């Protein structure tokens, strides 16, 4: 029996062939040159790995870079947080009270839990050293000596691989005391979670690292002043750290030029849903959605595009005609009324029922709410129960107004962003596909044909 399960599971093991080694990236930086076998230190060094680290430490024959110069370079690159919020990375790094004589921590958020997102998994699996190098550089820039990479529990084998990569880096002198003979010392540890979505929220992640139940803290104080064990902490996403070595090697302005103003560099999008070739696509910021959809082989089965959730499940849905005019960068998507988020692009074709789609999302948020604060704990369950009623033909005429109002009442009143994340899809769906909901309520049935 046990063996059968193992066999069954192995059928689902991603090989990366579909998600990442398809050669349809555009000017990739993080995914460049990967084939699934070349993740080890030697391979990474052969791709130019750890050159950025040597550069800042002055071990490449140059004069090295000061921490301020590193931060300035990152600021110049226009790199913005790849975890979803898009906060300028260089600015975040400059918040760290570098001179404060206390233990400071650097944390990598690899708790990639946003439904639809699978980009960080592929980075850690196929190019773990790029994240390690990025973290060492960040630690140097902020004067930090200890770091954690928090990897979510569902991808345990990737946690194990990362541990292996850490061992390689330590053995090669890239991690530990006096890195490459410099005065920079940095200890990096991998830490795995147990599968709670909320642990992707940075302060819940910190609590989890400390061994507590993963529940967000209220802010202020922010992690920059009160983070891991109450000490100054900087948290960035895996992809953000992954972008750093390229920036250092090629300079901030070069990175900015890859994308568009205020939206530097490349970004990895997880194309999921009704597309021919789902997978991760690394493309320059500002590439049009139409081109991205084309890379992914277009809508599955040649069907008509109905809607896209452009930035992971918590971003509001955009109907086809809106998204087709968008370019894939923070500003353009925000202007269209949604968010670039973590980069999970959920594509839905004309056969998708929006009520049922929302039901799945609402279930997810009700299930993942940590239960700490009232509006989210109570509100997410309420939303889910109402959407479920509507989906099952028990909707009432005033449900839509109530649904919208409950979502409105959750928004902006919770400790963390999960409340907003649960509310925004509801409001987005009601805004763009209200007629489908009305149809469900009035006719007790779906507008689109039943799924096959």
């Amino acid at each position: 029996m046990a063996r059968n399960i193992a066999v069954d599971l192995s059928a689902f093991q991603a090989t990366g062939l579909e998600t990442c080694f398809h050669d349809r990236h555009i000017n990739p930086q993080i995914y460049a040159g990967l084939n699934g076998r070349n993740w080890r230190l030697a391979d990474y060094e052969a791709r130019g790995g750890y050159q950025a680290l040597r550069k800042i430490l002055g071990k490449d024959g140059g004069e090295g870079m000061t921490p301020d110069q590193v931060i300035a370079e990152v600021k110049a690159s226009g790199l913005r947080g790849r975890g979803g919020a898009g906060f300028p990375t260089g600015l975040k790094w400059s918040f760290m009270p570098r001179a404060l004589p206390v233990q400071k921590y650097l944390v990598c958020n690899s708790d990639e839990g946003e439904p639809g997102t699978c980009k960080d998994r592929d980075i850690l699996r196929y190019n773990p050293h790029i994240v390690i190098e990025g973290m060492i550089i960040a630690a140097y820039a902020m004067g930090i000596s200890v770091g954690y990479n928090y990897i979510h529990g569902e991808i345990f084998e990737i946690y194990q691989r990362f541990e292996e990569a850490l061992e390689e880096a330590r053995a090669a002198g890239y991690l530990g005391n006096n890195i490459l003979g410099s005065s920079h010392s940095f200890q990096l540890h991998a830490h795995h979670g147990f599968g709670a979505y909320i642990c992707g929220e940075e302060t819940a992640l910190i609590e989890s690292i400390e061994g507590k139940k993963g529940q967000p803290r209220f802010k202020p104080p922010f992690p920059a002043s009160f983070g891991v064990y109450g000490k100054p902490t900087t948290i960035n996403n895996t992809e953000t750290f992954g972008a750093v070595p390229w920036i250092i090697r090629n300079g901030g302005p070069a990175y900015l030029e890859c994308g568009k103003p205020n939206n530097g560099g490349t970004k990895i999008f997880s194309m999921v849903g009704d597309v021919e070739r789902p997978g991760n696509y690394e493309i320059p910021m500002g590439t049009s959605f139409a081109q991205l959809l084309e890379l992914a082989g277009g809508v599955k089965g040649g069907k008509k595009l109905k809607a896209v959730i452009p930035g992971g499940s918590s971003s509001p849905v955009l109907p086809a005609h809106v998204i087709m005019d968008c370019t894939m960068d923070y500003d353009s998507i925000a202007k269209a009324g949604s968010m670039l988020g973590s980069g999970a692009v959920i594509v839905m074709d004309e056969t998708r029922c929006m009520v049922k789609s929302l039901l799945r999302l609402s279930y997810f948020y009700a299930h993942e709410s940590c239960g700490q604060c009232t509006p989210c704990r109570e509100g997410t369950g309420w939303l889910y129960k109402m959407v479920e009623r509507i989906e099952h033909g028990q909707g009432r005429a005033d449900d839509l107004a109530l649904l919208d109002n409950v979502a409105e009442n959750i928004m902006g009143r919770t400790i963390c962003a999960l409340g907003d994340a649960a509310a925004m899809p509801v409001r987005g769906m009601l805004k763009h596909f209200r007629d489908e909901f009305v149809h469900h309520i009035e006719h007790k049935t779906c507008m689109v044909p039943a799924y096959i």
Partner: protein
Amino acid sequence: MVEIELDGKKVQVAAGSMVMHAAEQAGSYIPHFCYHKKLSIAANCRMCLVEVEKAPKPMPACATPVTQGMIVRTKSDKAIKAQQSVMEFLLINHPLDCPICDQGGECQLQDLAVGYGKSSSRYEEEKRVVFAKEVGPLISMQEMSRCIQCTRCVRFGQEIAGRMELGMVNRGEHSEITTFLNGTVDSELSGNMIDICPVGALTSKPFRYNARTWELSRRKSVSPHDSTGANLIVQVKNHQVLRVVPLENDDVNECWIADRDRFSYEALNSDARLTTPMLKQGGQWKAVDWNTALDYVAKALKGIVGQQGPAAVGALASATSTNEELFLLGELVRGLGSDNIDHRLRHADFRQEAGAVRWLGTPIANLSKVDRALVVGSFLRKDHPLFAQRLRQAARHGAQILRIGSAGDDWLMPIAASVATAPSLWATALIEVAAAVATAKGVTAPLAVTPGAQAQAIADALLSGQNTAVLLGNAAAAHPQAAELLAVANWIATQCGASVGYFGEAGNSVGAQLVKAQPQQGGLDAGAMLAQPRKAVLLFNTEPLLDSADAAQAAKALAAADLVVSFSPFSANVEQAHVMLPIAPFTETGGSFVNAEGRLQSFHGVVRPLGETRPGWKVLRVLGNLLGLPGFAQESVEEVRAQAIGSADGIAARLSNATRVSPQGGVAQVELQRVADVAIYGSDSIVRRAPSLQQTADGRAVQVALPASLWGRLGLAEGDSVNVTQGGETVKLPAVLDAGLAEGTVRIPTGVAATAKLGALFGAVNVVRA
């Protein structure tokens, strides 16, 4: 200071304060549930959302720090809308069972729902059901669907009680408060969780369904059970005490009381009460009226004084009695020509400077503020739950708590340095600390000894403190070398600039000294009265077999007496007494206590005396009249108090822990020494008879604790019992391993019936496997 504008008013608050604090200061009420001034901030209920100018979203007042010039509106449209929406969320899954809910009428959720809720709900889905939990005899968790997940009880456990006994498991809507693996809540402060629960999720099990809150009259009182003098609100209906809750007093008990203070009232309504005077005739108890009983006592006393002389009369009193009672008892004994009166039944060393009233040495409130505290010979958590709580708060803010004692019992606070040794060596441990202090200060040590590592660490800590206290516990007070312990403590305290004092044993231990309930002119102390049995013994609120330093000796002494009169609210000393007189407990008489810090606190009776019960001071007054003694003409309890204490302002000058005894080390160790802790729910006559307290883990656990070496030597296994022999008596008790207990000691509780035959609290003892 920072100035902010709150609802149009300028408010000056300390930098780092939250908006909530500013509102409290400005007298502006912001609705809240999870915020509690004594607990850490959780900001999870979201009820206190207010509008802060320039902030895009409403901000929680409890967790938003003030900034200079901040403009806050707590009642603007934006704030009210946010608060109303939170209230709606809180109510959607809350059961509509207010009519049968114990919290109804005093429920924060109910009250705020009136202000912020709607008259009907928009929520028409199924409500959440949370299953009941069984957590022990004190707290009812039968209706956990009412819980609003504010986590006050969780934070109380973590921060105030010192152990996280309740926690929140699961996520989202399925979050629920529960104990770890269905355990019980065993904290000695657990009842406070009932008070701080803003809804009817945690309710009082003994009080459940006994009355509606609006039917209860609320009256102030003071707890007699420990020396804190916790202020109480006693809630009564139909002349019965139905509930006790804390009366907030930041200088004394803050907003907390111990479970002992809260649930002891059950004894006052129990069958154990004595409701009429009783005389023993031919070995049978007969109910009589007061005249008969008092005539009998007066005649018997006169007869004994006439035949044997006044010194044949002795009085033993509990310091849970009021000043007025103890004063009149002293007047009575002295009026008969005797000076044999004492309240220090558990003591073994009675050396005390004349007129010096021993006390805490520092204000109670300062216990929360000390940065160093050396606690000597104390079962701190069980003897003084609220003082322990204060020291815990000090420790949370960085104070170093140091201790010298025998047991490794967990005080639920970090202990910076500790010496665990047999009681006979406590003085030696203190002498070592003194020697280490002397070396550091370059002065002559009381005794030249080489300090051990822990003694050195204690000395180093004491010397580095700014606000330091040396505190002697109940075991140090009852110790055969109590005076030497005090002498060394005084020496150390003088060198370290520390205060020195006794925690104090009962609610009126300081008052008993003030009103001279101990020998003044060479009379016999409690120890001498038991060693040299008296012919007539007056027992006032005490049961010597449970309250004495040597129970076996007490039993013999009482058996040798011709007249034993038991003044007690209960049928107490039934075997030993010849007369039982029902006197009022603290709830049924006016009186006063002086607590450990010398604070005189008076109170009125809150219900009328049960049956034929009479206030003790009145009984003594009538007895004084019957005996024809002068000075028994008082008309009121206030008049007695004026004679007993004089002015409250004069108390401070009489407090002193000075001693002329010179510092000494320990005496030779016996092979196996008993360490007796007073069982928390065996400390006085009232708590002994409180059924719910007796059912708690602390109440049920009468066991002998053995150190690891002895445990191994006796070949004991979990669940085994041992035979304990002391004072010529052997009792069989369950044994338990206590790895922290000092070598050469056995911990055997006192104050409980199971050990009431044994001998001295710190005497030699023999233990074999049963």
